[in-house]
């Protein structure tokens, strides 16, 4: 009956967003008087998987078939469905991401489960099972009741404040039956900037707009990001102009982020950009135009030249270390 949490691995460690999902899952397990089981797919050391225990999981199922080492939502959904069956789980949880949504969708269809993506709070189980989810790209919320026997929740970053304890989880090998049809697509190539911090996982994001004036002027922004241990993003015009790669594009038609701190440099704050960042806890806007609409959505603002302000912020961060 345990709540099952599908986690994503990055270089053998559980991703931060997935650790949050585990914590979320353990709270749901508590309120429904059951335990939390994690499913991890891909190669990882047992010690890294035990980390799940600190966030409230009692058990980790580890599926580590070599065929599963490459991210594959079809196969992962199949493995998850088998884990759900073994555990008799009725509640399935994962962190919101491209992979999370893909696996959630396929497993929901397999199990005829109600699925809610973009969940922002713990469920209300006082009568029935109701969750709150973000809609209209964060411009509103909806409370949704799940009536289905099996439920799939895809949880947005910062839905809960995860607290680690000293607890530990047991790790069991999970050997699912794999289907050839799940491996019908051939992976020809993967282009990945391996050193980069993932935008959806980052606690701090420093992002640049047209005010950065061109692809060759990005150093002050990158240096601040480096000093803060932040990921870097950009606005749509910047990625359209090829100043920065497309996977950095944050906004309505790009990546939606929800970091603790979002620092916007030379971004005016078009409504489509705001739609991608309105889940952020704290927004800082640096822009030389005092009328930039982004200031209305910001917590802190500096009216000034990014090329003057950014290096000074970097120095202040370094000095405070």
């Amino acid at each position: 009956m345990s709540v099952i949490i599908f986690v994503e691995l990055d270089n053998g460690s559980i991703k931060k967003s997935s650790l949050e999902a585990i914590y979320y899952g353990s709270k749901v397990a508590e309120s429904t008087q059951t335990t939390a089981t994690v499913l991890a797919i891909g190669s990882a050391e047992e010690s890294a998987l035990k980390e799940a225990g600190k966030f409230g999981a009692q058990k980790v199922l580890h599926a580590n078939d070599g065929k599963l080492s490459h991210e594959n939502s079809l196969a992962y959904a199949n493995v998850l469905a088998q884990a759900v069956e073994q555990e008799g789980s009725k509640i399935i949880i994962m962190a919101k991401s491209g992979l999370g949504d893909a696996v959630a969708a396929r497993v929901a269809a397999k199990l005829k489960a109600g699925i809610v993506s973009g969940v922002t709070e713990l469920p209300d189980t006082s009568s029935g099972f109701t969750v709150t989810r973000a809609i209209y790209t964060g411009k509103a919320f909806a409370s949704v009741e799940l009536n289905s026997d099996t439920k799939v929740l895809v949880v947005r970053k910062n839905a809960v404040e995860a607290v680690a304890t000293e607890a530990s989880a047991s790790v069991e090998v999970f050997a699912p039956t794999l289907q050839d049809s799940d491996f019908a697509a051939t992976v020809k190539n993967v282009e990945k900037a391996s050193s980069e911090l993932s935008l959806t996982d980052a606690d701090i994001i420093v992002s640049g707009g047209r005010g950065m004036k061109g692809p060759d002027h990005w150093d002050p922004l990158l240096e601040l990001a480096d000093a803060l241990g932040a990921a870097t993003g950009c606005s749509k015009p910047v990625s359209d102009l090829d100043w920065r790669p497309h996977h950095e594009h944050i906004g309505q038609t790009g990546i939606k982020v929800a970091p603790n701190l979002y620092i916007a440099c030379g971004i005016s704050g078009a409504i489509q950009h705001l739609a991608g960042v309105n889940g952020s806890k704290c927004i800082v806007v640096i822009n030389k135009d005092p009328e930039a609409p982004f200031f209305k959505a910001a917590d802190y603002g500096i009216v000034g030249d990014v090329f003057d302000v950014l290096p000074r912020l970097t120095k202040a961060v370094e000095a405070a270390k």
Partner: protein
Amino acid sequence: MKILVCITSVPDTTAKISFTQDNTQFNKTGVQFIIGPYDDYALARAVELKEQHGGSLTVLNVGTSDSDPQIRKALAIGADDAIRIDTEPTDSYFVAAQIAEIAQKNSYDLILMGRESIDFNSGVVHGLVGEMLGIPSYSPVMKLEITDGKAEFAREIDGGKEFLEADLPLVLGCQEPIAEWKIPNMRGIMTARSKPLNVVPATPMDDLTVLKKYTLPAPKGECKMIAAEDAEQLIALLRTEAKVL
């Protein structure tokens, strides 16, 4: 090649979001509706693929007659015919089940849609449809070529891109820069009027989820301004006041 493109009719990206009837209905007053921006990319690529390979291009919407202007626009952009499943869409599962029902009867080679609708942002309908039909689904796809019945496509992954090759049929959730949005020309608009728009009833099913109530986010507090010459203070404030460093 038979292509199906599923489109949503959604409030314009700049629309003011509000609710009526004790926060249980979306307030459509003064709101302009558009084809979902991601769906528009899918449609544009589908039109190009049809030009290259021939075949048919059907556009599908799950919605009420309120969607008809967006469906006509899709026909004007280049779809041959349209199907509207006449119902108020209730959740992702319901919409996917309706699409799967139509797809099962017509065996499309390629089912394209946006990576997500911009009203509910779930991004799960393509995956649900794929599983319901027992065929692969991928998203978000930013490049798609069809050669000899095989699809070569690129999918955005965390921090990069993955290039894949797979046999048809496929269900793909699309995003930019898979194609440039297309604006209907006068000839397209004229011919769209006579293209078939088949309205079919929905297949009933149990509600797996029920939307109870909408809420708007709490209003944002004042933005605290820091003078440019005191920029360094920001770091201290982020540390001690906002507690995010």
